[in-house]
Each structure stands twice: as structure tokens, then as C-alpha cells.
């Protein structure tokens, strides 16, 4: 039975399939939920999770063990998720250009409203509004907020994952909260005035 991350890394580097299975058992929910928080789409998060573990399988030999295995996995997940968002935006732009030239094929995009499956039923509406606002934050603020608030990581761990100092993470978090407040205020004022 392989449980300790150090044993896991050793087994993985030896190409042990059981080690890979154990790694996935341990970290699949962590990877999936991080990706889900960033991309806000369950299918995309599932794709990213697969990509992350494929990447881990290929490049486990490059892992030197200088950081925690979970930190390394978080880093890969964040990179893949941000790449995915960029790719999607590019596709969307290309779709608009295609539609200008009369191509009627409309691509499916994720719905605007995202309901996180882990949010309690009575909180769903407010949470989806928060996630919609979160989408509009700059990448670094968004990542810091998700890692701390959704993934429950401490500031120190967020700093390690993001390769930043503790002060930088604190600053990112306070800017993220301030920006979210502004975005949510604007949203609710608009909604109240429309009613």
C-alpha cells in the first residue's frame, strides 16, 4: 500500500502503475476542484484534470522534490486551467470572425451562470453571483482567491504555489476582495434599479 507522497514519487519515477493509481486517488479531487474554480465549467475541469495527470505521468522524472507534491500539482493545474481559458477566448474570437463571414456554425460555450456543485443549496444563487464576479478578476487575484477561499489553503501555501512572497499574496487577496466588492455592488445596484 502506497500512501506517503515520498513513496509515491519514488514509485512513480520507477514507472509503477500502482503508484500512479494511488496518486490519482489522493489528488484527483484537489486537481478537479482547483480547475473547476478557475474555469467554472465541469466538463472543462474534467478535461484539465486528465491533462494534469497525463502531464504528471510524462514529467514525473523532472520532479526534484524541492516542493511538496501537492504544490507541484497545483502549479500544473493552474497553468493548464489558465491556458484553457485563453484557448477558449481565442476560439470565441475566431467564432465571431467566422460568423461575420457567414459561417452559421455556432460553437457551444459555457453558460454564463455557474453553479458550483459543492455549494449548499440555499447559497447557490449568491455563490453563482460571486463566481461570475470572480471571472472578471485579473488572473493572479483570481488564483489567490480560489486557492485561499475555495481550496482552503493558507497564505503561506498560496505563496509557495504562486511563487510569491507572503506580503505579495496578502496584497493580492486584499485587491481581489476589494475588486469583488466593487463588481458585486455594481451588479446588485443595477439589478435593484432594473426591478
Amino acid at each position, binding site marked *: 500500500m502506497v500512501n506517503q507522497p515520498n513513496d509515491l514519487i519514488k514509485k512513480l519515477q520507477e514507472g509503477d502503475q500502482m503508484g500512479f*493509481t494511488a496518486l490519482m486517488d489522493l489528488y484527483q479531487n484537489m486537481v478537479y476542484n482547483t480547475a473547476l474554480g478557475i474555469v467554472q465549467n465541469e466538463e472543462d475541469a474534467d478535461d484539465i484534470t486528465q491533462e494534469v495527470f*497525463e502531464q504528471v505521468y*510524462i514529467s514525473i522524472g523532472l520532479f526534484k522534490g524541492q516542493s511538496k507534491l501537492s504544490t507541484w500539482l497545483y502549479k500544473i493545474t493552474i497553468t493548464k486551467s489558465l491556458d484553457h481559458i485563453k484557448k477558449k477566448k481565442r476560439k470565441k474570437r475566431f467564432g465571431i470572425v467566422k460568423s461575420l463571414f457567414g459561417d452559421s456554425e455556432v460553437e457551444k460555450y459555457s453558460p454564463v451562470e455557474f453553479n*458550483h456543485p459543492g*455549494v449548499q443549496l440555499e447559497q447557490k444563487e*449568491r*455563490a453563482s453571483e460571486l463566481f461570475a464576479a470572480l471571472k472578471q478578476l485579473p488572473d493572479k487575484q483570481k488564483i489567490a482567491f480560489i486557492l485561499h477561499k475555495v481550496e482552503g489553503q493558507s497564505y503561506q501555501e498560496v505563496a509557495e504555489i504562486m511563487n510569491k512572497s507572503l506580503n505579495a499574496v496578502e496584497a493580492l487577496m486584499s485587491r481581489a476582495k476589494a475588486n469583488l466588492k466593487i463588481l458585486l455592488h455594481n451588479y446588485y445596484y443595477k439589478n435593484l434599479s432594473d426591478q
Partner: protein
Amino acid sequence: MNSKKNVDQLVEDAFNSINNIERASVKPFLLSRVNSRILSEKRTTWWENAAFYIGKPSFAIPGLAMLMLINLTAVIFYATDPSASIAEQNIQASSDEFSYSIASIYENENTEP
């Protein structure tokens, strides 16, 4: 004033809505899907490996030199081909004999001095 209070409350509620967020579960059979992805990746790497070896200078430079040599040989061979020049002579001879020159109405007008 009242609406500001409401909005502040809504913002506060939005922030608090993820306080007890639970982890979502991945779809079943993730391991199988990842394994099949890795296998398909392995299948494509054979071609990548082939391209890598063909692209190596130790393989590519002699390969290109060989291609150029074949081309050059073909050009030289056809340029000095005696059968090609005989055929050209025949065409020239029949052209002289039957006067292939193109006649036009302007030439007909000027036939008499």
C-alpha cells in the same frame, strides 16, 4: 439608504456563500480515461520519434546531399542525351523543308513588289 443597506447585505451574503463549500467529485472512471489518453499519446510519439531522427543533422544533411546528387545526375544525363538532340535536328529539318512559318494577311499583301 435602504437599498444601500440591502446591497451591502447581498455582497456580504455573496462572500459568505462559499464559506462551507464542499469539494465536488470527479466523474467516474477518471483513471481509465487518463490511461487511454497516455496510451494514445504513446502511439503518436512513434511518429514524433521518427521525425526527430529524420530531422537530426547527421541524417538530414547526407539525405539532402543524396537527393541533390540524384537531381544533378538526372539533369546532366538528360542534357547530354544524344537521342534528344537527334530528335531536335529532325524537327528543325522538317521545319526547313515544309516552311512552318506562320503566314498572315499582311505578308500576302506584300508578296508582289
